[in-house]
């Protein structure tokens, strides 16, 4: 009589977990032409979590984000976003499931000014941040709102790339190397911003090279190598697994 109880509890826990699961990837393979880049990725990100993809350059972290957005040549497996299977969904429909993508090269448009860049992506959900809130978060953008987008400094461009997807109401953010090449003070500012976004309940999948930036704010880390996920580390295991991470990341 006592036996079935734990099983039932597990099931209800599982059901609860599924409800909180914003992004689930099963056995994802991705290809650019003939080259096979991702070899069966499995990962999941829950509501309100900040999860990082760590790894060396070329390990497939950016490709994973692009594969989620259907920006790679070909992909197979399962990608479930907010409960919707999207492996066969055309690229332009994916954002409307609540995704915001911030590409590694930032993707600021030179033919658009700062404000046009900010207003460019269509709203994907109704409760995005207002333009005023974004200007409040990044006052530099307000001051330079009529400048050509690519005239901004690297840090300002990064803020613009981030602000742009916060405006759309996306509640799952895919952020690719947002601290790359930026001054420490701006990296610190971005860290604060990610903290605020977490408090708002946004779900974030972050590709990051700067482990010291990622470690204090992330809940979990996946380590990638050669297109595989080779390790999953919870934030409370960080100290115990430092050696291992150092080996994988080559720091």
């Amino acid at each position: 009589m006592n036996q079935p109880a734990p099983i039932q509890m597990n099931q209800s826990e599982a059901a609860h977990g599924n409800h909180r699961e914003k992004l689930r990837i099963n056995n994802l393979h991705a290809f650019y032409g003939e080259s096979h880049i991702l070899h069966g990725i499995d990962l999941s990100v829950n509501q309100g979590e900040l999860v990082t993809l760590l790894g060396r350059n070329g390990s497939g972290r950016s490709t994973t984000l692009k594969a989620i957005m259907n920006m790679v040549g070909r992909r197979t497996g399962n990608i479930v976003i907010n409960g919707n299977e999207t492996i066969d969904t055309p690229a332009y429909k994916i954002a409307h499931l609540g995704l915001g993508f911030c590409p590694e090269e930032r993707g600021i448009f030179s033919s658009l000014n700062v404000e046009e860049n900010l207003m460019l992506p269509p709203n994907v959900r109704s409760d995005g941040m207002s333009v005023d809130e974004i200007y409040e978060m990044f006052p530099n953008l307000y001051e330079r709102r009529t400048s050509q987008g690519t005239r901004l400094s690297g840090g300002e461009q990064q803020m613009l790339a981030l602000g742009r997807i916060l405006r759309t109401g996306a509640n799952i953010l895919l952020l690719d190397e947002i601290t790359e090449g930026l001054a420490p003070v701006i990296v610190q500012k971005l860290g604060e911003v990610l903290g605020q976004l977490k408090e708002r309940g946004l779900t974030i999948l972050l590709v990051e090279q700067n482990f010291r930036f990622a470690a204090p704010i992330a809940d979990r880390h996946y380590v990638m190598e050669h297109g595989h996920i080779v390790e999953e580390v919870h934030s409370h295991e960080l100290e115990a697994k430092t050696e291992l991470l150092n080996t994988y990341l080559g720091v």
Partner: protein
Amino acid sequence: MFDINLFGLFGQLLVGLINGSFYALLSLGLAIIFGLLKIINFAQGALYMLGAFIAFLALEYLGINYWAALIIVPITVGLVGIMMERFLIRPIANEDHLYSLLLTFGLALIIQGAFTHMFGSSGLSYAIPEELKGGNRLPFMYLPNYRAWIIVASVLVCFGTWYMIEKTKLGAYLRAGTENPQLMQAFGINVPLIVTLTFGFGVALAGFAGVMAAPVYSVSPDMGSNILIVVFAIVVIGGMGSIGGSILTGLGMGVVEGLTKYFYPEASTTVIFLVMVIVLLLKPAGLFGKEA
């Protein structure tokens, strides 16, 4: 003596502005298509000719007058363009751009050949609409109403197009789509649809130019291929893909051609190519083009 010269000078300037209006409309269409699709639409001239012929046939067989044709013909030609993009160009969109260039060039030959077969090559005439007949004697020249209308209407259409592309949200989609279509898709914008509609619009401008041209130029199958070579030179001078540049260069080169006709008529057919060579030597990206 001086008066006669002035009269001739303004006359040539007017002819230059009229030719320039057509250059501007056609090169604007090419610039829009090149900007977003990165393809050079060699069929633009044939579609301009198609516009003139549809206007002619609509009047002849359906009694559709000039004013209605100004609306209906661009839409019809635009639809032809949409079919072209959707069913012929899109399947080879990922191939080398040389293929789409060959494809549109082939289409131009087929369209032109079909019309030559059906209507001969001598040319047909289309009457100036009643409302625009006659003209005004200005102090220095005689200005026929229809010619004034061509300039005004083309400038309005060109400026309206420029405004839409440079100043509106739809235009921001277009400009951004030109730069990074993949990221636009990732933002949730249906780029293939925008590409198709843009192609249709660029081609519709040629159809519009065709209707405008019907009453002043002879409606003939080779009217498109004659003007297209000059228009390509203008697109190169203005800078590939520059919207404002294509309009200003189109009008400007028409004037340059007109002035040359007055001062040194022998060079009038080559002057645009001479300008092209000089511009390419001094500014390889064109007058308004962005350096790569």
